Protein backbone atom coordinates (compact mmCIF):
# COMPACT_ATOMS: atom_id res chain seq x y z
CA UNK A 1 0.00 0.00 0.00
CA UNK A 2 1.20 3.51 -0.76
CA UNK A 3 2.46 5.56 2.19
CA UNK A 4 -0.02 8.39 1.55
CA UNK A 5 -2.92 5.92 1.45
CA UNK A 6 -1.84 4.37 4.75
CA UNK A 7 -1.53 7.82 6.31
CA UNK A 8 -5.01 8.80 5.14
CA UNK A 9 -6.58 5.49 6.13
CA UNK A 10 -5.15 5.60 9.68
CA UNK A 11 -5.57 9.34 10.18
CA UNK A 12 -1.88 10.14 10.62
CA UNK A 13 -0.91 13.81 10.81
CA UNK A 14 1.82 14.58 8.26
CA UNK A 15 4.64 16.49 10.02
CA UNK A 16 6.95 16.87 7.02
CA UNK A 17 4.84 17.97 4.03
CA UNK A 18 8.09 19.18 2.43
CA UNK A 19 9.07 15.54 1.89
CA UNK A 20 6.82 14.67 -1.02
CA UNK A 21 8.92 12.03 -2.77
CA UNK A 22 8.07 9.18 -0.45
CA UNK A 23 4.28 9.55 -0.50
CA UNK A 24 4.10 7.12 -3.40
CA UNK A 25 6.42 4.65 -1.70
CA UNK A 26 4.97 1.16 -1.40
CA UNK A 27 5.07 0.11 2.24
CA UNK A 28 4.75 -3.57 3.05
CA UNK A 29 7.05 -3.88 6.09
CA UNK A 30 7.07 -2.18 9.45
CA UNK A 31 8.85 -2.15 12.79
CA UNK A 32 7.87 -0.97 16.26
CA UNK A 33 10.51 -0.22 18.88
CA UNK A 34 11.60 2.48 21.30
CA UNK A 35 15.21 1.29 21.50
CA UNK A 36 17.19 2.93 18.75
CA UNK A 37 19.97 0.33 18.81
CA UNK A 38 17.29 -2.27 18.16
CA UNK A 39 15.89 -0.23 15.25
CA UNK A 40 19.39 0.14 13.82
CA UNK A 41 19.96 -3.60 13.97
CA UNK A 42 16.58 -5.00 12.92
CA UNK A 43 14.30 -2.54 11.13
CA UNK A 44 13.47 -3.45 7.51
CA UNK A 45 14.63 -1.26 4.62
CA UNK A 46 11.88 0.85 3.04
CA UNK A 47 9.69 0.07 6.04
CA UNK A 48 7.64 2.15 8.45
CA UNK A 49 8.86 2.72 12.03
CA UNK A 50 6.37 3.20 14.88
CA UNK A 51 8.03 4.67 17.98
CA UNK A 52 7.55 6.86 21.04
CA UNK A 53 11.03 8.38 20.76
CA UNK A 54 11.07 11.87 19.25
CA UNK A 55 14.68 12.99 19.62
CA UNK A 56 17.14 13.82 16.89
CA UNK A 57 18.84 10.44 16.82
CA UNK A 58 15.59 8.85 15.62
CA UNK A 59 16.11 10.58 12.29
CA UNK A 60 19.72 9.44 12.00
CA UNK A 61 18.82 5.89 12.96
CA UNK A 62 15.79 5.63 10.65
CA UNK A 63 17.79 7.14 7.78
CA UNK A 64 20.70 4.81 8.44
CA UNK A 65 18.32 1.85 8.40
CA UNK A 66 16.94 3.27 5.10
CA UNK A 67 13.39 3.38 6.39
CA UNK A 68 10.70 5.22 4.44
CA UNK A 69 8.84 6.92 7.27
CA UNK A 70 8.41 7.24 11.02
CA UNK A 71 5.12 7.41 12.92
CA UNK A 72 5.21 8.89 16.42
CA UNK A 73 2.65 7.18 18.62
CA UNK A 74 0.71 8.69 21.51
CA UNK A 75 0.54 12.10 19.80
CA UNK A 76 4.20 12.77 20.51
CA UNK A 77 5.70 15.55 18.41
CA UNK A 78 9.38 16.20 17.78
CA UNK A 79 11.06 19.60 18.05
CA UNK A 80 11.63 21.77 14.99
CA UNK A 81 15.30 20.78 14.63
CA UNK A 82 14.22 17.14 14.35
CA UNK A 83 11.70 18.01 11.64
CA UNK A 84 14.35 19.98 9.75
CA UNK A 85 16.79 17.06 9.89
CA UNK A 86 14.09 14.69 8.58
CA UNK A 87 13.33 17.03 5.68
CA UNK A 88 17.06 17.22 4.89
CA UNK A 89 17.25 13.43 4.89
CA UNK A 90 14.04 12.99 2.89
CA UNK A 91 12.40 11.05 5.67
CA UNK A 92 8.64 11.41 6.14
CA UNK A 93 7.36 11.88 9.68
CA UNK A 94 3.81 11.37 10.93
CA UNK A 95 2.07 11.63 14.27
CA UNK A 96 -0.90 9.67 15.58
CA UNK A 97 -2.90 10.03 18.79
CA UNK A 98 -3.27 6.24 18.91
CA UNK A 99 -0.89 4.12 20.97
CA UNK A 100 1.72 1.84 19.43
CA UNK A 101 -0.37 -1.31 19.83
CA UNK A 102 -3.35 0.12 17.99
CA UNK A 103 -1.24 1.67 15.23
CA UNK A 104 0.55 -1.61 14.57
CA UNK A 105 -2.71 -3.57 14.67
CA UNK A 106 -4.30 -1.31 12.09
CA UNK A 107 -1.18 -1.37 9.90
CA UNK A 108 -1.24 -5.16 10.01
CA UNK A 109 -4.88 -5.16 8.94
CA UNK A 110 -3.84 -3.06 5.93
CA UNK A 111 -1.24 -5.64 4.95
CA UNK A 112 1.88 -4.05 6.46
CA UNK A 113 3.78 -6.88 8.17
CA UNK A 114 6.92 -7.44 10.17
CA UNK A 115 10.10 -8.85 8.66
CA UNK A 116 9.31 -12.45 9.52
CA UNK A 117 5.64 -12.67 8.59
Amino acid at each position, binding site marked *: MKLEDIARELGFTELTPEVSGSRDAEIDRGYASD*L*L*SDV*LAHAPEDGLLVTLQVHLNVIAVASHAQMAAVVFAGDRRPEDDVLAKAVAEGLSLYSSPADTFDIVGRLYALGVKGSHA
Partner: protein
Amino acid sequence: MNVCFADLHVHTALSPCADNAMTPPVIVGAALTERLGMIAVCDHNSARNVAAVQEVAGDHLVVLAGMEITTVEECHVVGLFAGAAAAEAAGAEVGACLEIIDDAYETLFGEQPVLDADGRETARERLALATATSLDVNAAVALVHRHGGLAVAAHVDRRSFGVIGQLGFFPAEAGFDAVELSRHVPAGPEHEAEYAVYGLPVLRSSDAHHVHDVGAARTEVICERPGFDELSLAVRGLEGRRIGDA
Protein backbone atom coordinates in the same frame (compact mmCIF):
# COMPACT_ATOMS: atom_id res chain seq x y z
CA MET B 1 33.33 27.17 53.09
CA ASN B 2 32.91 28.78 49.72
CA VAL B 3 30.27 28.61 47.02
CA CYS B 4 31.45 27.23 43.71
CA PHE B 5 29.21 27.36 40.66
CA ALA B 6 29.72 24.28 38.57
CA ASP B 7 28.39 23.05 35.23
CA LEU B 8 29.15 19.35 35.46
CA HIS B 9 27.96 18.23 32.03
CA VAL B 10 29.50 19.92 28.97
CA HIS B 11 30.10 18.27 25.60
CA THR B 12 32.94 18.98 23.20
CA ALA B 13 32.92 18.66 19.42
CA LEU B 14 33.90 15.01 19.91
CA SER B 15 30.24 14.25 20.62
CA PRO B 16 28.67 13.75 17.19
CA CYS B 17 25.55 15.71 18.18
CA ALA B 18 27.57 18.65 19.56
CA ASP B 19 28.49 21.78 17.62
CA ASN B 20 31.89 21.44 15.96
CA ALA B 21 32.68 24.89 17.40
CA MET B 22 32.84 23.31 20.89
CA THR B 23 36.63 23.31 21.00
CA PRO B 24 38.68 23.38 24.20
CA PRO B 25 39.49 27.15 24.00
CA VAL B 26 35.85 28.03 23.23
CA ILE B 27 34.52 25.94 26.12
CA VAL B 28 36.99 27.36 28.64
CA GLY B 29 36.31 30.89 27.42
CA ALA B 30 32.56 30.41 27.80
CA ALA B 31 32.92 28.91 31.28
CA LEU B 32 35.07 31.84 32.43
CA THR B 33 32.62 34.34 30.92
CA GLU B 34 29.84 32.58 32.83
CA ARG B 35 31.96 32.86 36.01
CA LEU B 36 31.89 29.14 36.62
CA GLY B 37 34.45 27.76 39.04
CA MET B 38 34.28 24.22 37.74
CA ILE B 39 33.04 22.33 34.71
CA ALA B 40 33.07 18.68 33.72
CA VAL B 41 33.72 17.55 30.16
CA CYS B 42 31.32 14.71 29.42
CA ASP B 43 31.31 13.50 25.84
CA HIS B 44 29.22 10.56 24.73
CA ASN B 45 31.01 7.30 25.52
CA SER B 46 34.49 8.85 25.37
CA ALA B 47 36.89 10.95 27.41
CA ARG B 48 39.36 11.63 24.61
CA ASN B 49 38.94 15.43 24.63
CA VAL B 50 39.12 15.89 28.41
CA ALA B 51 42.87 16.41 28.72
CA ALA B 52 42.88 19.07 25.98
CA VAL B 53 40.25 21.12 27.81
CA GLN B 54 42.17 20.72 31.08
CA GLU B 55 45.35 21.91 29.35
CA VAL B 56 43.65 25.09 28.10
CA ALA B 57 42.05 25.73 31.48
CA GLY B 58 45.34 25.58 33.35
CA ASP B 59 44.93 27.33 36.71
CA HIS B 60 42.03 29.49 35.54
CA LEU B 61 39.27 26.92 35.76
CA VAL B 62 38.86 23.46 37.28
CA VAL B 63 37.90 21.00 34.56
CA LEU B 64 36.75 17.61 35.81
CA ALA B 65 37.18 14.55 33.66
CA GLY B 66 33.87 12.99 32.73
CA MET B 67 32.02 10.87 30.24
CA GLU B 68 28.35 10.27 29.41
CA ILE B 69 27.74 6.57 28.93
CA THR B 70 24.78 5.36 26.88
CA THR B 71 23.51 2.13 28.40
CA VAL B 72 21.91 -0.74 26.52
CA GLU B 73 18.51 0.57 27.74
CA GLU B 74 19.49 3.92 26.13
CA CYS B 75 19.78 5.68 29.47
CA HIS B 76 22.51 8.28 29.95
CA VAL B 77 24.87 7.82 32.90
CA VAL B 78 27.39 10.58 33.61
CA GLY B 79 30.65 9.46 35.17
CA LEU B 80 32.85 12.07 36.90
CA PHE B 81 36.44 11.04 37.63
CA ALA B 82 39.41 12.18 39.68
CA GLY B 83 41.53 12.78 36.59
CA ALA B 84 41.84 12.37 32.84
CA ALA B 85 43.75 9.11 33.20
CA ALA B 86 40.93 7.48 35.18
CA ALA B 87 38.35 8.78 32.72
CA GLU B 88 40.34 7.55 29.74
CA ALA B 89 40.74 4.12 31.34
CA ALA B 90 36.98 3.98 31.91
CA GLY B 91 36.53 5.26 28.34
CA ALA B 92 38.61 2.43 26.95
CA GLU B 93 36.29 -0.09 28.62
CA VAL B 94 33.23 1.73 27.32
CA GLY B 95 34.75 1.93 23.84
CA ALA B 96 35.15 -1.84 23.78
CA CYS B 97 31.33 -1.99 23.98
CA LEU B 98 30.82 0.08 20.80
CA GLU B 99 30.82 -0.67 17.07
CA ILE B 100 33.08 0.93 14.46
CA ILE B 101 31.36 3.58 12.31
CA ASP B 102 30.47 3.01 8.67
CA ASP B 103 30.47 5.42 5.70
CA ALA B 104 26.98 6.80 6.38
CA TYR B 105 27.54 7.47 10.09
CA GLU B 106 29.23 10.90 10.06
CA THR B 107 26.67 12.38 7.67
CA LEU B 108 23.75 11.17 9.75
CA PHE B 109 25.03 11.42 13.33
CA GLY B 110 27.85 13.98 13.07
CA GLU B 111 31.64 14.19 13.12
CA GLN B 112 33.79 13.09 16.05
CA PRO B 113 37.00 15.14 16.04
CA VAL B 114 39.65 14.52 18.70
CA LEU B 115 41.11 17.97 19.42
CA ASP B 116 44.27 19.40 20.93
CA ALA B 117 44.39 22.36 23.32
CA ASP B 118 44.40 24.79 20.38
CA GLY B 119 41.25 23.23 18.98
CA ARG B 120 43.05 21.54 16.09
CA GLU B 121 41.86 18.13 15.02
CA THR B 122 44.48 15.48 15.76
CA ALA B 123 42.41 12.38 14.99
CA ARG B 124 38.90 11.31 14.09
CA GLU B 125 37.17 8.92 16.50
CA ARG B 126 36.07 5.77 14.64
CA LEU B 127 33.87 4.28 17.37
CA ALA B 128 30.15 4.94 17.03
CA LEU B 129 29.85 7.26 20.04
CA ALA B 130 26.20 8.15 19.26
CA THR B 131 24.99 4.61 19.75
CA ALA B 132 24.24 2.52 22.82
CA THR B 133 26.89 0.43 24.52
CA SER B 134 26.18 -3.14 25.60
CA LEU B 135 26.36 -2.09 29.29
CA ASP B 136 23.16 -2.03 31.30
CA VAL B 137 22.55 0.73 33.87
CA ASN B 138 23.90 -1.31 36.77
CA ALA B 139 27.03 -2.23 34.82
CA ALA B 140 27.62 1.38 33.74
CA VAL B 141 27.38 2.64 37.33
CA ALA B 142 29.66 -0.18 38.50
CA LEU B 143 32.19 0.66 35.76
CA VAL B 144 32.27 4.32 36.89
CA HIS B 145 32.74 3.26 40.51
CA ARG B 146 35.46 0.78 39.60
CA HIS B 147 37.44 3.70 38.19
CA GLY B 148 36.89 5.73 41.36
CA GLY B 149 34.23 7.97 39.83
CA LEU B 150 30.87 9.42 40.79
CA ALA B 151 27.89 8.10 38.83
CA VAL B 152 25.16 10.60 38.03
CA ALA B 153 21.76 9.79 36.51
CA ALA B 154 21.80 12.33 33.67
CA HIS B 155 18.85 14.69 32.96
CA VAL B 156 16.35 12.54 34.86
CA ASP B 157 13.58 15.00 34.01
CA ARG B 158 13.86 14.30 30.29
CA ARG B 159 11.82 11.67 28.50
CA SER B 160 14.69 11.03 26.06
CA PHE B 161 17.67 9.16 27.53
CA GLY B 162 16.83 9.90 31.18
CA VAL B 163 16.69 6.75 33.33
CA ILE B 164 13.12 7.37 34.47
CA GLY B 165 11.91 8.10 30.94
CA GLN B 166 13.59 5.00 29.53
CA LEU B 167 12.94 2.54 32.35
CA GLY B 168 9.73 3.93 33.79
CA PHE B 169 11.20 4.04 37.30
CA PHE B 170 14.33 5.18 39.12
CA PRO B 171 16.72 2.22 39.53
CA ALA B 172 17.60 2.69 43.20
CA GLU B 173 19.65 -0.54 43.30
CA ALA B 174 22.04 0.71 40.60
CA GLY B 175 23.90 2.80 43.18
CA PHE B 176 23.89 6.26 41.62
CA ASP B 177 25.65 8.98 43.62
CA ALA B 178 23.48 11.87 42.39
CA VAL B 179 20.73 12.78 39.97
CA GLU B 180 21.04 15.56 37.42
CA LEU B 181 18.30 17.92 36.26
CA SER B 182 18.41 19.58 32.86
CA ARG B 183 18.10 23.28 32.20
CA HIS B 184 14.44 22.69 31.31
CA VAL B 185 13.51 22.41 34.99
CA PRO B 186 13.08 25.90 36.47
CA ALA B 187 15.42 26.83 39.33
CA GLY B 188 14.12 26.56 42.87
CA PRO B 189 13.68 23.76 45.41
CA GLU B 190 9.95 23.47 44.71
CA HIS B 191 10.75 22.17 41.23
CA GLU B 192 13.25 19.65 42.59
CA ALA B 193 10.91 18.02 45.10
CA GLU B 194 9.86 15.15 42.86
CA TYR B 195 13.51 14.30 42.15
CA ALA B 196 14.68 14.63 45.74
CA VAL B 197 12.73 11.54 46.78
CA TYR B 198 15.56 9.20 45.81
CA GLY B 199 17.66 10.43 48.73
CA LEU B 200 20.41 11.62 46.38
CA PRO B 201 21.78 15.11 45.85
CA VAL B 202 20.28 16.94 42.88
CA LEU B 203 22.75 18.48 40.44
CA ARG B 204 21.84 20.95 37.74
CA SER B 205 23.85 20.88 34.56
CA SER B 206 23.53 22.43 31.13
CA ASP B 207 24.33 19.33 29.02
CA ALA B 208 25.75 21.98 26.67
CA HIS B 209 26.14 20.94 23.04
CA HIS B 210 26.53 24.56 21.88
CA VAL B 211 28.64 27.36 23.31
CA HIS B 212 25.64 29.48 24.32
CA ASP B 213 24.42 26.62 26.54
CA VAL B 214 27.53 26.51 28.75
CA GLY B 215 26.44 27.54 32.26
CA ALA B 216 22.74 27.61 31.29
CA ALA B 217 22.18 25.39 34.32
CA ARG B 218 24.59 25.20 37.26
CA THR B 219 25.08 23.45 40.53
CA GLU B 220 26.01 25.32 43.70
CA VAL B 221 28.75 23.33 45.39
CA ILE B 222 29.51 24.37 48.97
CA CYS B 223 33.16 23.43 49.43
CA GLU B 224 36.64 24.72 50.27
CA ARG B 225 37.76 24.88 46.65
CA PRO B 226 36.61 23.44 43.29
CA GLY B 227 37.89 19.96 42.53
CA PHE B 228 36.92 16.32 42.35
CA ASP B 229 37.69 15.42 45.98
CA GLU B 230 35.70 18.38 47.29
CA LEU B 231 32.80 17.53 44.96
CA SER B 232 32.85 13.94 46.22
CA LEU B 233 32.54 15.19 49.79
CA ALA B 234 29.77 17.61 48.80
CA VAL B 235 27.80 14.89 47.01
CA ARG B 236 28.01 12.76 50.14
CA GLY B 237 27.32 15.71 52.45
CA LEU B 238 30.53 15.14 54.43
CA GLU B 239 32.84 17.50 56.37
CA GLY B 240 30.58 20.53 55.87
CA ARG B 241 30.61 20.19 52.09
CA ARG B 242 27.25 19.93 50.36
CA ILE B 243 25.27 20.59 47.24
CA GLY B 244 23.30 23.86 47.54
CA ASP B 245 19.70 24.55 46.54
CA ALA B 246 20.46 26.94 43.68
